């Protein structure tokens, strides 16, 4: 039992790291632009399918680098053409727009690549478990965790130490003042949106190696990511990271005693956090008001 618990906590951390990657992208966009991006799962799908298409030409590693950038460019265009028009309005407008966009992306994927799933293998070097006993710790899963750690680390450094990063963080707290200080808020939001979508694209390529590549693959990953934000706290990227890891571990621990509730537990956690500490564990006060 002890061994099983240890296995599932470790496993939960691995899954949680992936949720955190998705959630941080969502959180970046939510914090600065106030857009609840329901199309985030759709951009994840685009990232995965682009990697599938590019892979025969540039290999897995090339696709891992290029596909998220292409996804970010698509995100940038979508922000410029559609989303920025709704910034001054009720957030429900952008929520509905991205909700519709999610359907369009899903059906567009189906039209271009077909309704059936597509096979996507991980590189042979990462395919095997690291040991027979810890069979669930595969090379690929370790690689995913390392990727998440690197990307999140780089992002945090950028936000902390670069001029743009500081502006994004300041804009999260008080956009009007940032604009009054002469910062081009429109460009800042576009760039920030593209970075968020880059993370979705990267999550898509990583997920394609782990789960089936098919047009609805983003749906089931989107909700845990939203919950990671709510649990961790809106407005705090560290909170989002913590939220992702926490729901992964909670899900893993529940699987030991009551496997069929391992998905439901994350919703229970969300409910408890909302009741006890509505702004989330590390959230900014008043962000959800």
């Amino acid at each position: 039992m002890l061994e099983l618990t240890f296995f599932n906590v470790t496993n939960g951390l691995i899954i949680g790291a992936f949720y955190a990657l998705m959630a941080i992208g969502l959180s970046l966009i939510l914090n600065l632009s106030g857009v609840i991006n329901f199309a985030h799962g759709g951009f994840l799908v685009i990232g995965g399918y682009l990697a599938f298409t590019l892979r025969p030409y540039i290999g897995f590693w090339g696709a891992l680098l290029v596909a998220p950038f292409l996804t970010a460019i698509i995100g940038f265009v979508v922000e410029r053409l559609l989303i920025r028009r709704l910034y001054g309005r009720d957030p429900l407008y952008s929520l509905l727009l991205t909700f519709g966009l999610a359907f369009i992306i899903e059906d567009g994927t189906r039209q271009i690549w077909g309704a059936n799933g597509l096979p996507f293998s991980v590189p042979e070097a990462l395919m095997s478990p690291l040991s027979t006993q810890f069979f669930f710790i595969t090379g690929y899963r370790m690689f995913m965790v390392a990727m998440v750690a690197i990307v999140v680390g780089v992002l945090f450094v950028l936000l902390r130490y670069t001029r743009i990063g500081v502006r994004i963080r300041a804009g999260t707290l008080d956009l009007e003042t940032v604009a009054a200080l002469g910062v081009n808020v429109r460009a800042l939001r576009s760039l920030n949106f593209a970075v968020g979508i880059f993370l979705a694209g990267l999550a898509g390529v990583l997920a394609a190696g782990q789960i089936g590549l098919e047009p609805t693959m983003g749906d089931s990953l989107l909700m845990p990511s939203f919950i990671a934000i709510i649990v961790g706290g809106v407005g705090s990227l560290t909170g989002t990271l913590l939220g992702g890891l926490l729901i992964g571990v909670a899900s893993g621990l529940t699987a030991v005693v009551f496997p069929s509730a391992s998905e439901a537990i994350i919703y229970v956690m969300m409910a408890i956090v909302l009741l006890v500490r509505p702004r989330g564990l590390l959230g900014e006060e008043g962000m959800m008001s």
Partner: protein
Amino acid sequence: MIRPFAALDRRTVIKAGAALGVTQIAAPFVISARGETPIKIGVDNPLTGTYAAPGKNENTGMQLAVDQLNAKNGILGRKVELLIEDSTSGDAGTAVQKARKLIERDNVDFLVGNVNSALAQAMAQVSNEKGILHIVPGGHTDGITGVNCKWNVFRVCNTTRMEANSIVPLLFNTYGKKWHFITPDYAFGHTLYEGCEADLKKLGGTITGNELTPLGVTDFSAYLIKARAANPDVLIVLVQGNDMVNCLKQISQFGIEKQLHVAGTQQELESVEAMPPEARVGIWMFEWYWKQPGTTPGLDQFIADIRKRADGKVPTARTWFGYLTIHAYALACEKAKTIEAKAAAKALADLEMPPEIKMQPNKVYFRGGDHQLMLSAFIGELLHKGDGDPENLFKVNHIIAGDSSAPPVSETGCTMQIPA
């Protein structure tokens, strides 16, 4: 100071809800419209969501059958027209709404659907209430031709009990007697598990555990950790669709198939094609397969016709379900000499499918007592890579007649009430 957020009030949420509601009542997609008074067939199957691939494949088979009928004499000299609606993959409310629309507004003569068992059962209530003949091509849960059987409802695909009966003895003799299950936590999974459990216990086997997994789960690692810790002889995977792809992909990444035998009951070409080669392992049952041992009348032509319509892809069991559904309806109407629902239903009961429609050995017919098609089960092994064709990913070792895998009508719970 401003915040990027503004409050969401109740009115805006209601407006959003209303806007979403409107998307549910769009016009049907009329595939063909020929002849003066065509016979209208309403198809209410998933075109979006997780079951879009099987739904579309069933529809491709139906469209081929309709075109073949129209190229000859239609049905009773009348042209045939398909009216296709998207039922969604899991929303019974939408499926019912579309079924009502097809029947009440579009006046269809015959209803087809659904891939999803729950949606199929909900549609059956509507078709029964309206007295419309209805064939379920691909929803497996037993009740459709069991306790909830209806005079107007027929089913093409297997019941879960037929699936279990067709493969459990072979798995038991090949792989061992200690089994661990990964079962989808909804009606289909529960009945399939019960069937396997009953058969296994009859043979003297034991169950080390049953992991119930929510539909649409992406990560199976927690369940696989438990399953491996139980140390069974064989891990039986009962999940379907994308869940099957995810589960087998993770099984192969964890190397579990090298320590335990991995197998299951129902497997589909749609899922197998979505897996990477290393995940294609184990003994499974297909409900129909395009590459059969020996010569099968009509099969080569069927494959060629479907390849032309499906970007070169071969027919799957789903394509064949759709194809047989339309031809079975046509045969019943021709036999009854009318499209009137009760007469056609009576003609369809115990009607044997001709060789070029059944495309498999053994007798294939709709059993009169429960309206279940007696179709063969194709048992064999998955192949890592295509044998002779990239899509030939399964080696058929045994073909078992539906008559021998189906429990007798008396055990299905069906009491067929035929109105006067």
